[in-house]
């Protein structure tokens, strides 16, 4: 079965394992997802499965989106989010339902999300620069980035040099998280550790690449 789901981050808590050790858990409301399209090498040049998640009112979608979900023999509920998951062996057909049961406790997964936006952040926060000294006659050097390169030669800052700028709101993947909880009834998935993004954020759960 295809190992991939779209979900919503709910939040974190901790539970105890059988030894009584507290383990941090992030809860994800994962699925149910529907296979909305299958990408094939012949037609699209690559293999992937397009999943849809989040039932909504028909009026929240455009006509084009509704038409994509109701074409030919395919008749799916109005789904708010569509995401593609690359797959080597495709064993699902368009219209299939994918639930949290594709994952089992003990498995490793990767979770892709969008990190919390931090706005325009300085080099200390964004790249972990040390900043300047606080004392010894310093003024306004505490969180300064320091030098960004040499002097007259080259006479400019090289591209890609680290500095202040927009931080967060990026696509981030948390790799190799252990599945600690699967609740098919409530579509809940619990993974050990933190995942990117704020509560309520959309996440994609995939089989771990480096397990």
């Amino acid at each position, binding site marked *: 079965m295809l190992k991939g789901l779209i979900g919503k981050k709910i939040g974190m808590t*901790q539970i105890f394992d059988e030894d009584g050790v507290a383990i941090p858990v992030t809860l994800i409301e994962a699925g149910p997802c529907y296979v909305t399209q299958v990408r094939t090498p012949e037609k699209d040049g690559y293999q992937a499965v397009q999943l849809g998640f989040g039932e909504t009112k028909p009026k929240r979608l455009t006509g084009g989106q509704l038409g994509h979900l109701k074409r030919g023999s395919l008749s799916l509920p109005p789904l708010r989010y569509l995401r593609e998951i690359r797959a080597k062996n495709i064993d699902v057909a368009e219209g299939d339902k994918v639930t949290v049961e594709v994952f089992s406790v003990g498995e490793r997964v990767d979770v892709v999300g969008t990190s919390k936006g931090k706005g325009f952040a300085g080099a200390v926060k964004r790249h972990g620069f040390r900043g300047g000294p606080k004392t010894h006659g310093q003024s306004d050097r505490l969180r300064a980035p320091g030098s960004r390169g040499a002097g007259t030669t080259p006479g400019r800052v090289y591209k890609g040099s680290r500095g202040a700028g927009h931080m967060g709101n990026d696509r981030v993947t948390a790799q190799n998280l252990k599945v600690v909880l699967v609740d098919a009834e409530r579509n809940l998935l619990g993974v050990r550790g933190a995942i990117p993004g704020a509560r309520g954020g959309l996440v994609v759960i995939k089989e771990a690449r480096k397990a």
Partner: protein
Amino acid sequence: MMSDLIKSIEPAVNPNIPDLHPGDTVSVHVKIREGNRERIQEFKGIVLYMHGNGANSTFTVRRMASNGIGVERTFLLRSPRIDKVVVERHNVVRRAKLYYLRSRTGKAARLKQKFN
């Protein structure tokens, strides 16, 4: 705000732990695993403070070890590793965090018993 879904998977309250308050003299019986054997260790002292809420709540107990060295140990309030907690007496305290006890030793570190 905490989601009901989170609450629903949180571990249940350990039934062997009674209501604790800062200042209580308690004896905490902790299960300790040594290889395959399990034994129970007692840790007796004064509850310095309670912390957190829900599944994350902890309580910290301070006891005087030999040579007058204070030892503090923090336990998870819902931990299944706690066999039981016995409240030996309630004491009169006027704050929630008894940090001031750390700087006191001997007679000055005594607390007055509360009878209700």
